[in-house]
Every structure is written in C-alpha cells, then in structure tokens.
C-alpha cells in the first residue's frame, strides 16, 4: 500500500461565479477521483457540494469534468494520472451551476418528458408478450443507459450553444426515440405516432452530425452514434423519399443546421 499527496484544483462557487481552489490531499492505492473528493469533504471542505450515489458506476450521479473530460468520478482511477500531475475537477459545462460540482440537469428531465412513452399493443395482456432475444438486443443496449448525461454534456450541438437547447433533445433522448422505434412491440405507429418523424421534427435529429463525441464519453460503452443515431437518421431518410413527406417537411420549417 503506498500513499502520496496529490494536488487538486476543484471548482468552487455558485450561480454568482467562482473559481478553482487548490488542495493538497492524500491518495491511497486503488482510489478513484470520487474518493478524493470525499476526503476533501471530510477533512478540508465540509460543505463541498457533489452528487453521488452508488460509487459503482451504476447510477450515473457523480458526473463531472476531470481535466476537462466528462467522466464519472467513481469510475476514474487515480492511477491513470501521473503522481505529479495537478488534477482539475470542474462541473459539467453544458448545464448551469448550482453549487461547486453540482449542476442543474433539469434540461434532461424536460427533454425526457417530450418523448412520447411506450405504446402497448392492443389485444396483448400482461403475460402475453412474446419477443425474441435477437429482436430486443438492440433496444436493450440503449436501456443500459444510466443517465449520467455525459453525452448530453459533451455534445457540441449544445455544449457551447445554449440557443440550440430548445430544439435539440441531445444524444440520450434521441437514443430513447431509437430505443422505442426498435422495440418489437411498440404500437406507436398503430396509434398514429411516427417516432422517426418526431425525431427529426421535434427532437432535432438533424442537428447531429455524427462526430461520435457522445459514444466516446459513454461509461456504459453504448454505441450511441453507430447503433442509435445513424440508424434513426437512415430510417428517417427513407421516409423523406416519400414526396409528400418531403414536401411537408419543407413547408413552414427552416432546415436544420447540423
């Protein structure tokens, strides 16, 4: 067991403003960044605000930016840094700061509400659902999402473009649309809901220009771009070859910027 003293810079402040504060803090074998933040709370800064829950990479609460990269603090081992490196921890940049490392992630909950829920098929009661494993694999991949919102934070469409937020649901919720669209028993179409069209028209799929930043930061390793967003775009494009749909999409709407 070897311990050493690490140098940390942690952003402290609130909606009024703030800045990086320097700390020197003990680090032990096997620890993660969240352990160090907890040690700061217990020994140097009892009111240092941070969100966390499971400390096992399952709940997606402790999202922050470590040396500028969006990460889960509980899954970021200290051993990935050089011992003489100063480690900078800042709140998620795409969301308004509440205090210290805690941001207002309300944007995501608003977007979640705008995606129409699963539509159960008529005539199938509880216990009567039959689905093959290979048909649920794809949607199951998307349901691995722990809603850490790192993809929402890193996505360049909104990261430095607050003005895009109203029109763009972000990778997490476009993936939710894809998940429902690929659900073998979702009866949205029968109920008159075209999920692919809403992805384009209401959730801003067109803003995405598939730079795969979301996939890179996903702690669950979900291939958001390749498996959710690109297929959703392809399915949407199929629709757009329908001249009536194409015409309709050109009337009364500006084309998307992505």
């Amino acid at each position, binding site marked *: 067991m070897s311990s050493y003293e690490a140098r940390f810079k942690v952003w402290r402040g*609130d909606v009024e403003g703030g800045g990086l504060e320097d700390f020197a803090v003990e680090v*032990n*074998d*096997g*620890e*993660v960044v969240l*352990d160090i933040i907890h040690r700061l*709370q*217990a*020994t140097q800064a*009892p*009111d*240092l*605000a*941070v*969100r*966390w*829950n*499971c*400390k*096992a*990479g*399952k*709940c*997606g*609460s402790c999202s922050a930016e470590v040396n500028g990269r969006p990460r889960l603090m509980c*899954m970021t*081992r200290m051993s990935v840094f050089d011992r003489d490196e100063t480690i900078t921890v800042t709140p998620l940049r795409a969301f308004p700061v*509440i*205090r*210290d490392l*805690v941001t207002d*992630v309300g944007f995501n*909950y608003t977007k*979640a*509400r705008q995606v*129409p*829920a*699963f539509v*159960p098929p008529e005539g*199938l*009661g*509880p*216990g009567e*659902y*039959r*689905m*093959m*494993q290979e048909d*649920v694999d794809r*949607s*199951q991949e998307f*349901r*691995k999402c*722990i*809603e850490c919102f790192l993809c929402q934070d890193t996505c360049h469409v909104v990261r430095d473009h607050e003005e895009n937020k109203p029109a763009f649901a972000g990778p997490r919720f476009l993936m939710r649309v894809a998940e*429902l669209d690929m*659900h073998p028993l*979702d009866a949205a179409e029968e109920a008159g809901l075209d999920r692919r069209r809403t992805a384009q028209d209401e959730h801003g799929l067109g803003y995405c220009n598939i730079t795969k930043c979301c996939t890179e930061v996903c702690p669950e390793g979900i291939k958001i771009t390749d498996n959710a967003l690109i297929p959703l775009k392809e399915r949407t494009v199929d629709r757009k070859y329908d001249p009536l749909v194409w015409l309709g999409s050109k009337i009364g709407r500006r084309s998307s910027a992505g």
Partner: protein
Amino acid sequence: MVDRQEWDVVVVGAGGAGLRAAIEARERGARTAVICKSLFGKAHTVMAEGGIAAAMGNVNAGDNWQVHFRDTMRGGKFLNQWRMAELHAQEAPQRVWELETWGALFDRTKDGRISQRNFGGHEYPRLAHVGDRTGLELIRTLQQKIVALQQEDFRETGDYEARLKVFQECTVTRVLKDGERVSGVFGYERESGRFFVLEAPAVVIATGGIGKSFKVTSNSWEYTGDGHALALLAGAPLLNMEFVQFHPTGMVWPPSVKGILVTESVRGDGGVLRDSGGRRFMFDYVPDVFKDKYAESEEEADRWYDDPDHNRRPPELLPRDEVARAINAEVKAGRGSPHGGVFLDVSTRMPAEVIKRRLPSMYHQFKELADVDITAEPMEVGPTCHYVMGGIAVDSDSAAARGVPGLFAAGEVAGGMHGSNRLGGNSLSDLLVFGRRAGWHAAEYASGRAAARPRVDDAQIDAAAAEALRPFSAESGEPAEGPPENPYTLHQELQQTMNDLVGIIRREPEMKQALEKLGELRVRARRAGVEGHRQFNPGWHLALDLRNMLLVSECVARAALERTESRGGHTREDHAAMDRAWRNVNLLCALTDPTGGLAATDPVRGQITLARETTEPIRPDLLALFEKEELVKYLAEEELYE
C-alpha cells in the same frame, strides 16, 4: 415562511417501492407527490443486479406460487410474516408482466417469454432479469411509466405535474401529525436549503435501508435509515431490527471499493467459491435443515446445471446468511485470499464470451476498479452489509403502519416479509407487490378523508425547523457541553462501531459496548456543527442524517442483544443454535419518549424500548405445503401440536 402545498398522498422515496406506490395511487385518482433525496431515477434500486423473483414457470413449468412461498419461508427461517410471503408469491408474476406493458425489456427464453435464472434458495429458475442490471431496468421502467402518466395529465390539463409530481433532491425530516393521524411531512430542498411542508392525509414511507450505519456496505449514501426513524418518531414501532443481511460477496480490494456488491448471479450462473488452497469449501457448510436439498459432491453439483431434476443444487446457492457465515469462518480459519476474502471463480467455469454476455457489469466493475479480468482469474470477495430485514411493522394486506392512521410503508423499510433472512431476487418483487398495495390503500384511505383533511399544526413545523437548523448554531452554543463535533468523524465512528460490535457475528459484551458507544455518539451528535450556508451543503445534510442512523443503530443493537439465538441475519457466537422457542417471537422497537422529540441527552438511558410479541400462527393450509419432518426443525412443540 415555510412553503405549504396540499396533496392526497405523499410518497417518501423514489426507488422501486416508492415509484410503484406513486403509480398506483395516481391511477386510483389520488393527487400524488413523490419526494426523493437524489435525482429522479438514481435510487438505490438501480444497484440491484440479479433479478426479480416471480414464479412464472417460464423455464421450469414445475414452479408455482406455493413453491415460491415455501422457499421464502425457508430462507427466512419461518419468522416471515406469512401472509406477506403468501401475497408476495401470488402476486409477483402479475407485477413482472405488468412491467412489460410499460416498456420493460427482459432477457428472453427461446420461445420468446421472459427468461428466468437460478438464485440462492430458489428451488427453480425464477428470476426475471436483464443481464446483471435488472434494478436499472426496473427503476427506468417505473420512471418512464411515471412520465407516461404525466404526459397523460399534460394532455388533459396542460400541466405535467397536475396529479403526479416528483420533488427530487429533497429530504423529509419529520412526519407531521394531527392527533393520532398523519397530516403531512416536513422537509428541505437540498439545493436551496429551503424548508417546505406537504400536507396530506396519507404518507407512504419507501425509503429503503440502513446500510450506511455500517462501515463495509453495498449501500449508497442515501441508506441512512430515514424512513425507519421517521416512523419511530411518528410513534410507529419497528419489527425485528436485529436481522441485517450481510451479502456473502462484496468486493474486498482495493480498499476504496470494499463492500461494493458482486451479484449472486455469478454463483447462480455457475461460479464457485474456493479457499486459498483451491477447495470448494461450501460443501462443509450445509446446515441440517437443508441437508437433503443440496449436493454432497462436486460432481453432483456440476451435473445440476444441466439436469436439475435428477441432481441436487450446489451449496454455493444456499441462502445468503449461510454463505456469508461460511466465508467468514474460512477467513477466520486462515484459509482466506490475500486481501481477507475468499475466491469466487467463473473463469474456469464458463467461456469468456459467455461471462461477458451474462455478467457484463461484473466484468466491467472488476476490470475498471480492481484491474481484475474475471474471465481469466478469480475474484476476491467477502461479506458486506446489504439489506435490513427488520423494518416498520405493517399490516400484511394494506401495508398500513401499526398505530399511526394514514402512515403506510413498503419495500426494504417495511418489516416482516423476509423473516430473518431475505432470498436474493425477493427484494425487487417485494418492492412491486407491496409498493402497489401501499399506493392502493393510501389512495383509498386519503379519498375517505377528502372531506375532513387533517390540520397541520404550526408548532410542529416550528419545532421541525428548529431541529433542522440546530447544526448551524451548534458551534457557538453551550460551550459547557463540549467542543463542536465534525459530522463526518461521528459518522465514521458510528460505522466502525456497528461493523465491529454488531456485525456479522455477535457477542453479548460487544453489543453492550456498542450501546454505550452509541449513547456517547448521540450526545456528541448534538454538537455536530457545520460550516457554510444552507445551499447544497453535504456537511449539514449528514449532520441531520446522523439522528436517523443513531436511532436505527440503537434498534439493531438492542434487539440483537435481546434475541439469544442465531437465526438468518442474526448470528450470536454465544447462542450459536437456532432455538425453536424464538420462532414465534417478534421484537418490537418503540421510541421510549415519543414526546421528547429531539435527541435525548442522557448517554446511559437509551431512546428505544423493546417489547416481545407472539406472532400470529401460520394458517393451516399454508403449513400443509410443508412436510411434517421439515416443520419439526423449525416450529415449537406447541405450534406443531396445533
């Protein structure tokens, strides 16, 4: 001025039980508020890995509710509130199927039905699952169902939150009362520190467990026993708090992740436990009551996976209490792994690809946190505090708390269902079955009171506010009592005390010592001071949570001292055997001085009074599900006679 709102039903907690209760209450017409300490969708339920136990019989058609009931009673060593175990076994399949109609996607059988896996103590493959992330699927499905209901309300009223609202990142510190009955809750917003009151005739407590009172635990920071303490303070008794489940397999290294859960699915899918010499030691630890149900040789155990009808189960799949004690004994005997656990191996049992597909989170967790590749080498594991069987004493059918009209409880915070030990997989089903029942009966109770809503008393609000603000003045006040205390230090001392003195193996002198230490900590906790202000201040939040952890810890220690036998999640070195005379004895914890309100200052006299109660006899038709020879091992003479 404290913000006040009126609701019909308030649900405290947004894990599986809380969300299921809220859905039910709202669907039955009650305007329902949910309050949770974390963000919506982050509750501890997400950490459940293995699955939801429900006798659907999809994999083995021999399964039915009677078999599930039997397994549950055996797992709990017959101390279970049998009516709860019955309702649970009967209703669990409906609750799982209903999740599919809300969009859940479970792993499938070859014929397209919900797949079910083996688990400790379950006779047949019974756990509906999604890889090893079943809890996440459950919480997300319930969360999305809540959103679906809000979308419905939006279409009708133009307001998503007209009938169902989630107050996230809020903590409830008091249940308010009008005379005997519930009148609402008092709490604060973590973000701003602002106080608020939700007035409601019915309150459902669904706050989960107490693990954060122990040092080595699989539980998250939220598990500070809030609901247990809220009920006690409101005058409701807690049942059988001595029963705390130590999950046999938590990570033991590195130190910073010690306690994090390693799912039982590892064993359910074929993983085996070995000592430092590579021996499968579990064959030495099959207790008499289970002798005829578990394999005697490795060969038989290995054949069972493919031919369960002609072979008996491997002893690695004994109930959790048995496996945890066995691991503890192996380590104590010097046959442990380098970091003080034992070896859990799947690498020699399954191809790497199968491991990655069936146990993806475990693969990920060990790779990322411990540099261990579980497809190539064994894991090191040891017991970790995981679950409390004890909890709020409730009516089996309605989930109503005893003695406080309008108070309901469901999920881990409610007692009785699991007896002295819970089977893996029975928690998620418990949340759904009794979450729904609590929501249903709370809504019904509230609608009956619509005309005469209870009155919320200003004096109670003022007292609750003063109690919550105390940590800010602690540093300057009353120097005669002693210096201000750091809440983090107090918490660490409490965790060490419970871990060392009221842990997996218990002894009378140690528990007495624990009670003295808890008394001392209680006095010092009155001086827990905090810096800074009320906006998102974790030091303050912890100072307030300490009250709950100290109350609940005292319940655990007192009840554990009182029960002079070993049963399930309560193991006494000085009373090593299960005693049939204790089979029908419940221990109830109540607040000694319910009017005292704030924490007692006297370290000697505790805050908790214990009472013994004889359990209701098990209904004859349920007893008839067991062989006489088996019942003889559990039931007292006079019970058998009847």
